[in-house]
């Protein structure tokens, strides 16, 4: 049942990430403080399906435009995605946006609403105009082409939506701590924690990561508590000029035999990962000791627009196999044992730190 819980939680997180609405404070029964919330506008431009890919651009104030190209199966939650981030010009409030996505292309569009705006529900204890959702279309020029032409779209119109909240004063129990504006890199890496994380304790996981030629790569195979199969995910991050690009391949459930490890306490500790879905080849971890282990093989991730080997001299690795009866928090409580530079899957620190080893 835990796995089912994971599924529900994953869906909830995905919905939360997909939603373009602003963060609103939850209002408790005792409203002792007055909080002023500033107006906010977010938008989404949706293009028709381009080959196997769904292409959409999310706009966030003040000037973030994230182009997402993804191929997913909502039933299996399998996701292959590439996100390109840039700063747009124009005014989202006014509905005029111009954005350049480097070599991928550019857009210059204006929002044309159709029909009446849909009024949202005013939160309890708040005063001010209710939130408003405007459906319509973005008209102008959309010209985008993925690396190697893995997707290509040229259009003069695309469906879209703007969601607006207005200045409001709310009586709340606790004043929300102010969240600093999201950086462009953080916006592009929004799904990283979901893809490289776990909803329950992890019984066994192998992490491998490294950096070469300005591109950072992370791969994780894991067995989560209560799940009958392994999850397999990989991320590649790079800057194309000033544009951050994050590619993700995520398989929450894999066929039997995808990820096998030795048992807790067994020496030498070994693990093997077999490619499936967007992954091909195999990789093997052999750990003679904490100070000596290796990650070899030809495991490769096929991201949208990029084929990336996940092994090699610049890729470091760490294996964790624990018993939840010994450590109830599982591998989450065990720091990775990189045999090289420290690599963190954190949102802002996905870079290789230090240079030892």
């Amino acid at each position: 049942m835990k796995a089912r819980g994971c599924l529900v939680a994953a869906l909830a997180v995905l919905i939360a990430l997909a939603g373009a609405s602003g963060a609103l404070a939850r209002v408790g029964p005792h409203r002792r403080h007055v909080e002023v919330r500033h107006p906010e506008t977010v938008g989404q431009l949706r293009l028709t399906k381009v080959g196997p890919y769904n292409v959409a651009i999310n706009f966030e104030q003040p000037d973030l435009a994230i182009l997402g190209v993804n191929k997913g199966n909502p039933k299996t939650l399998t996701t292959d995605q590439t996100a390109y981030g840039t700063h747009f010009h124009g005014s989202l409030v006014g509905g005029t946006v111009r954005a350049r996505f480097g070599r991928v292309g550019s857009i210059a569009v204006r929002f044309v609403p159709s029909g009446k705006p849909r009024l949202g529900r005013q939160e309890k204890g708040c005063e001010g105009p209710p939130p408003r959702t405007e459906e319509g279309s973005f008209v102008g020029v959309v010209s985008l082409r993925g690396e190697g032409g893995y997707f290509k779209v040229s259009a003069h119109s695309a469906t879209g939506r703007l969601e607006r909240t207005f200045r409001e004063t709310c009586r709340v129990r606790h004043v929300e701590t102010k969240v600093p504006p999201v950086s462009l890199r953080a916006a592009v890496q929004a799904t990283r924690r979901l893809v490289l994380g776990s909803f329950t304790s992890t019984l066994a996981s192998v992490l491998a990561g490294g950096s070469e030629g300005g591109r950072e790569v992370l791969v994780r195979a894991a067995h989560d508590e209560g799940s009958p199969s392994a999850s397999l995910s990989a991320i590649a991050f790079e800057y194309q000029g000033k544009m951050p690009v994050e590619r993700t391949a995520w398989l929450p459930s894999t066929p039997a035999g995808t990820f096998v490890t030795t048992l807790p306490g067994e020496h030498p500790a070994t693990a093997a990962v077999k490619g499936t879905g967007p992954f091909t080849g195999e990789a093997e971890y052999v750990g003679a000791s904490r100070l000596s282990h290796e990650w070899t093989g030809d495991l490769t991730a096929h991201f949208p627009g990029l084929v990336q080997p996940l092994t090699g001299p610049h890729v470091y690795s760490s294996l964790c196999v624990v018993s939840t009866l010994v450590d109830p928090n599982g591998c989450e409580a065990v720091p990775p044992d990189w045999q090289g530079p420290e690599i963190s899957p954190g949102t802002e620190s996905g870079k290789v730190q230090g240079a030892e080893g």
Partner: protein
Amino acid sequence: MRPRRAIYRPRAMRARRATGTRSEIRRRFTLVAVAAASALPFLAAPASSMAVSFSTPAGGSTYARVHASNGYRLNFSENDRGYFSVRVVGHDTDTSFGLRGGPVAGGRVSANLGKRGRFDLRFVPQGRVEKVPNGGFCSGPAGRWQAGYLVGRARFRAEGGFTQVRLHKVPAAHETSPKLHCHFSEASLEAEEHKKLRRMEVRASARKGHTHESLEAILFYRHARPARRRVRFRAFRKEADGRIAITREAKVEARESSFSLTGGPKMPEEVELKAPAPFAGSATFTRTAESTFEWGGDLSVTFPGLAPVPLAGPSFSTSVCAGKRCATKSSKALEKLVGELFSGPARAR
């Protein structure tokens, strides 16, 4: 509401009962604890405390206890809602047969158990009605207890004839209790066996149609129990035979060697169980290279009158716990359901 336990007291005991002796209070506690256990799922107790408050409805029951063949004891009762129950106790086992009995009429005990027999007895009171104290956990007016005899005809033969009895007249009692308000604290509920005394627990259960089988094995700490009683094994089986609900239980205690931790200190979830009779064979809980768990072996239990019932295999969902930490294996059916949720039914695993 489960039927009351049928306990017949000899005359010597009856003389002490009105004063609320320790055994009487314990018996009352047991009756109300059974009611509390039944009521627990329906009570919205605050998360911070396990204290439970509830009310028991007014009611009455007629009961008797007799010695049956092959060293078994037979307790039978019928409450004033017409629920009849006969319980066979002995040789580390406990088997109950329950059903809606015959028409309710002033302390009659009548039930047709089909091939297992028939009860058709009426209660004949003898002596004075006595008051029954409520014990320390419940408040309300005192109950009433009337000694007497059950007369008529009764015959009972359990499966395979492992025990049988024929009755025409048997000492019995009729007891009525008013509506009671009871309160249990966490301490009183766990007084007899605190969870902290348990070092490790294995629980396995499987359901097939209306049949539910389960195993519980508890390894106690050294300070909690002597070496020869360090491990407790209990097996349960619930089933329905037409309108008769049958529950069976086998309980034995064994030495620590019957519960071995085969995985070593880094993997204590790997265990092997070898229980003494009426159990046979052994079962192992093992971790695979894919960090899933398997529960296999030939462990079985022989309930009186039945063929050995397997207690290990893929159809069992199993958990091995040390305190609040558990390693869990779902049943194959549940794993299949979860697999289909993630991967669709067509996926071969």
